C-alpha cells in the first residue's frame, strides 16, 4: 500500500516537471533563429502563395504562446501532431524506436554484464597489475570520443570489407531467410555496439570499482574480516550489497538513455535510429517531432529514476524505513 502511494506521489510530481520542461524546450526551439521554411524560400519554383499556405499549416503565423497552447492541448490528448512534411510524428517515432531499442539494450546489457564484474575484480585486486591494466584500458575508453572511434571503425570496415558500411540491413534483406536475416543484422550491429560498449564500459567499470573500494575500506568490512568471515563472503554478502546502491541509481539514468539514442554514433554509422531522426528534426526546426522526442526523453528519465528508487527500496532497508516516515 505504502509503495503504491509513493508511486502515485512520484507520478503526480512529474506533471509540473514535464510542464516546465515542455515550456523551456518549446521556447528554445521557437526563439532560435531557425526558419523552418528557409529551404522552400530559396527554391525559385515555390510561389508566395505556397509559402503563405505552409506558414498557416505549420501555425507559424500565430504568436508563440498560442502555438504552445495548441501543441500542449493536442499533446495532453495523446496526439503528437504531424511533422513539417505532413507525416504523423507517432508513426515516425514508431519506425525508429525498435531500431534504437535494439542497439541501446544490447549495449546496456553487455556493459553491465562485463562492466560490473570487471569493476569488482579491479577493486578486489586493488593496485595489482590487473587493476592497473584495466585502469589504462578504461582511461582509453573514456578518453576516446565516440564519433572518432566510430570513424576509425568505419574506415576499418571499408578497408577490410569484413563489415557492412553502416545501416541496419543489407539491400537484399527482404529476400533472406530468417537465419540470414539475423546474421545480417548482427553483422551490421557489431561496429556500432563496439563503439558504444567501449565508451560506456569504461565509466561503469570505474564507478563499480570506486564504490566497492569505498565500502571495502569501511569499518564493518574490517570487522567482518577480523571476525574471520571468508573473503568471498565478505565481498559478495557484505561489501557488494552496499556498493551496489549507486549503481542502481545509475541504472535509472541508463534507462533514460534507452530511447535518447546515440546521435553521433548513429550518424556516422548511418544507423536508422531515433538519434539521427531527432538531429535532423532539430536542424530544420520540425517542432512537433522535436517536442515529441524531448518529452519522450524527459518521461524516460523520470521513469528511470522512479524505477531506480523503487529498486533501492527493495535492496536497501534503510531507504525503506526512511521512505515511509
Amino acid at each position, binding site marked *: 500500500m505504502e509503495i503504491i502511494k509513493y508511486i502515485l506521489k512520484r507520478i503526480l510530481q512529474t506533471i509540473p516537471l514535464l510542464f516546465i520542461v515542455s515550456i523551456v524546450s518549446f521556447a528554445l526551439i521557437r526563439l532560435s*533563429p*531557425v*526558419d523552418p521554411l*528557409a529551404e*522552400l*524560400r*530559396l*527554391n*525559385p*519554383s*515555390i*510561389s*508566395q*502563395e*505556397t*509559402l503563405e499556405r505552409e506558414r498557416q*499549416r505549420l501555425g507559424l503565423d500565430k504568436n508563440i504562446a498560442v502555438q504552445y497552447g495548441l501543441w500542449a492541448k493536442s499533446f495532453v490528448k495523446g496526439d503528437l501532431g*504531424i511533422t513539417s*512534411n*505532413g*507525416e*504523423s510524428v507517432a*508513426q*515516425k517515432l514508431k*519506425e*525508429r524506436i525498435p531500431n534504437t531499442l535494439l542497439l541501446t539494450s544490447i549495449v546496456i546489457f553487455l556493459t553491465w554484464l562485463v562492466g560490473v564484474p570487471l569493476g569488482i575484480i579491479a577493486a578486489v585486486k586493488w593496485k595489482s597489475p590487473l587493476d592497473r591494466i584495466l585502469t589504462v584500458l578504461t582511461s582509453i575508453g573514456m578518453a576516446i570520443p565516440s*564519433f*572518432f572511434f566510430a*570513424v*576509425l571503425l*568505419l*574506415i576499418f*570496415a*571499408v578497408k577490410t*570489407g569484413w563489415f*557492412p*558500411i*553502416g*545501416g*541496419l*540491413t*543489407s*539491400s*537484399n*534483406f*527482404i529476400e533472406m531467410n530468417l537465419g540470414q536475416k539475423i546474421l545480417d543484422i548482427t553483422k551490421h550491429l557489431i561496429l556500432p555496439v563496439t563503439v558504444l560498449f567501449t565508451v560506456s564500459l569504461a565509466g561503469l567499470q570505474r564507478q563499480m570499482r570506486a564504490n566497492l573500494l569505498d565500502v571495502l575500506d569501511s569499518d564493518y568490512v574490517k570487522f567482518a574480516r577480523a571476525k574471520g568471515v571468508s573473503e568471498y563472503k565478505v565481498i559478495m554478502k557484505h561489501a557488494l550489497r552496499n556498493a551496489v546502491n549507486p549503481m542502481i541509481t545509475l541504472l535509472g539514468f541508463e534507462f533514460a538513455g534507452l530511447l535518447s539514442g546515440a546521435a553521433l554514433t548513429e*550518424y*556516422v554509422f*548511418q544507423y*536508422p535510429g531515433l538519434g*539521427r*531522426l531527432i538531429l*535532423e528534426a532539430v536542424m530544420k*526546426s520540425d517542432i512537433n517531432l522535436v517536442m515529441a522526442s524531448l518529452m519522450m526523453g524527459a518521461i524516460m528519465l523520470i521513469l528511470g529514476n522512479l524505477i531506480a528508487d523503487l529498486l533501492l527500496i527493495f535492496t536497501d532497508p534503510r531507504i525503506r524505513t526512511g521512505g515511509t516516515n
Partner: protein
Amino acid sequence: MKKMGYVVLVIILVLLFAKACIRRDMPDAEIISGGGTEEQLSLNIYPVERKNVTINGVDYLQTNAPIGKFGGTLINSTIGEGPKTFNPFNSKDATSSTFADLMYDGLVTIDPVSGQYIPKLAKSFEVKGNDYIVHLRHGIKWSDGKPITADDVYFTWKNIILDGFGNTSTRDSISVDGKLPTVTKIDDYTVKFTTPKPFAPFLASLSTAIAPKHIFEPAVKKGKDFFDTFLSTNVNLKDLVTSGPFKLVEYVPAQRAVYKRSPDYYVINSNGEKLPYLDKITYLIVGDANNEVLKFEGGELDVIGVKGSDVPRFKERQEKSGFSLVNLGPDTGTMYLSMNLNNRLNKEGKPYVNPTKSKWFCNKNFREAVDLAIDRENMVYNIANGFAKPLFTPESLNSIFLNKELKPYPRDLGKARDLLEQAGFKQDAKGRLRDADGNRVEFDLLTNAGNAEREAIGVMVKEDLESLGMKVNFKPIEFNSLVNKLLSTYDWDMVVMGLTGSPLEPNGGKNVWLSNGALHMFNMRTPQEAGKNLLPWEEELDYLFEKGAIALSFNERKKFYNRYQEIIYNEKPMIYLYSPIRITAIRNKFKNIYPTTLGGVIHNIEEIYVDDTGAENGNN
C-alpha cells in the same frame, strides 16, 4: 605515410567540419589531362530513335538500343532523409520527385540529347497556336490493369493541378497574368490544352505525372488537407497504382527503397520484348555525402555522383574496382557573388544597407572592379580540383539558351584599379582602399556555414578583393539566418551563394530576375515597393522575361534571353564564378549506358541491363 594521410583525409571529411583546404598552385594538370573521361561521353552516342509501333492494338514505344539481358539490380542512393511522400503531386524536394518519377510517367519527356520535349506516355502531340493537342496511346494500362485514358489526363489536370491540390508549383509556373490554361477531353484518347495567351513554357509542364483517376479521385474529394497526406511514406505499398517502368515494393525509412520492374510497361526493345531489363532498382538512403562515398568504395552502391575534390581518389581505383568515371560536363548549378544594391529605407525609416557602403555597391565601376579582381581559374583549380568551368553568365553552361557571345575574361587587377580610380576610390599610403569621402572600404561577406565549398569560395574572394585594398570580413553564418537576411531583413553587404536552374527553361529564373520576384535578392523589394524605383536595366529585365515567356519559337525566345544574359554580364548585380562539372561513377557491369549532359547517366533506365549477373552479389 600515405595511409596516414588517407586516414586523416577521411576523418576530416566525415567530421563535416572540413574547411576545404586551399592550396594555391596545386599541379592539377595531370588529373585533368590524364583522363579519358572526356572521350567517354562522346564515345557512346545515344541511339535516340524511338518510334511508336502498334501490336495487337497496343501502342508501344520501341527503342533501338542494343538488346540486353533481363534481370539484375541497380543500387543507387539518395542523400538525406529519404522521400517525404510517394504522391507525385505533393513532392517539394528532389528526392521525393526522383522516387515519384520512376513510378509515374508524364505525357512528354525531355529528349536527353537535344533538350526538346518528346512524347512519352502520350503517343504524340501537336501544338497549334495556343492549343496543345495530346494523343494518348491505345491499350496501355495502369499497374492494376485499368486502361490509361483521356479521363485520367483530364482528371489530373483539371482536378489536381489546376484546382491547386498538393504542391502548386506546376500551376504557378503556367499561370499567365493570373490566368490558367484550360483542358478539354476530345475523345477517350485525345485531350486538348489551351493557354490563355501564347506561352512557350507550357510544354514543359506536360511532363508532370499523370495520376490514375480511380485511385486519386476519392482523395481529391476529401479535400486539400487530406490530399496533403495522401500516399505519404507510410502508405501500404500494394495500394500504389503506377504507370512508370518501376514500382516501389519495399520502403524502409532511413535505409532504403526497393523498386521492382513493371511487367506491363509500354516500352519495348527491337525484339518486341517488354522493358525494363532490370529486375530491381534499390535506392539506399544515406545520411551524408561522405558515407555515400564509403558505400560506393565498399561495393554497396553502383552509381554515385563524384565531387570534384574526390575525383583523384576515384580515378586511382577506377580500373581495379571495375567502374568508370563519366564526365557529364558543366552542371546546372551556379556559384555566384552578389552585392546588395538596395538603397531604400526599411519600415523604421533606416536604410537597409549602410548608405556609405550602398554607394559603393550601386556604383557599376565598383562592381566591375570586384568582378575583375576575382580569380575564377584559381577557384576552379583549388576548390573543385579542376572539375569546374569558370562562369560569366546567369544561364548555366549546358543551357540551350546560353549566350555564347559573352566571352570569358581573365583576372585583371590593373584594370580593376583603374576602374576604382575613375570612381574616386584611392589607396592610401598603407594600401588601404578609401572612397571619395575618405571612408575605408570595408564590408561583410556572408555565406551559409557548413557548406565547405562556399566557405572556400568566400576565403578566396576575400583574398582576391584584399589585393585591391578592400577589407572583407568573411562570415559564414547559419543557413536559416542567411536566408532571413537575404529575403526578409535585407541587411547584408555581399554574399556567396549558389542556385540551380534549368538548362532548358530560363523562365524558371524569373523569380530571381523580375524586379518584384521573390528571389530578386540583389535588390529585394517589399510588396509595397513593387514596381517602384526600378533601375533602367531592371525595367528591361522585366520586359525581356515577359516577352521571352510568350514568344513561341526557340529562336525568337533566344533573342530575349540572350539580351537578359548580356545585361547581367554588363551590370553585374550577380557575379557568376563557376559551374561544377558533373562526374558520375558507374560500375562497368551495366550496359546500354549512354550518358548525356542533360539526362545524366541513367536517364534511359528501362534500357539499362546487367552483363555479368553472376558477379552481382559478389561484393558482400
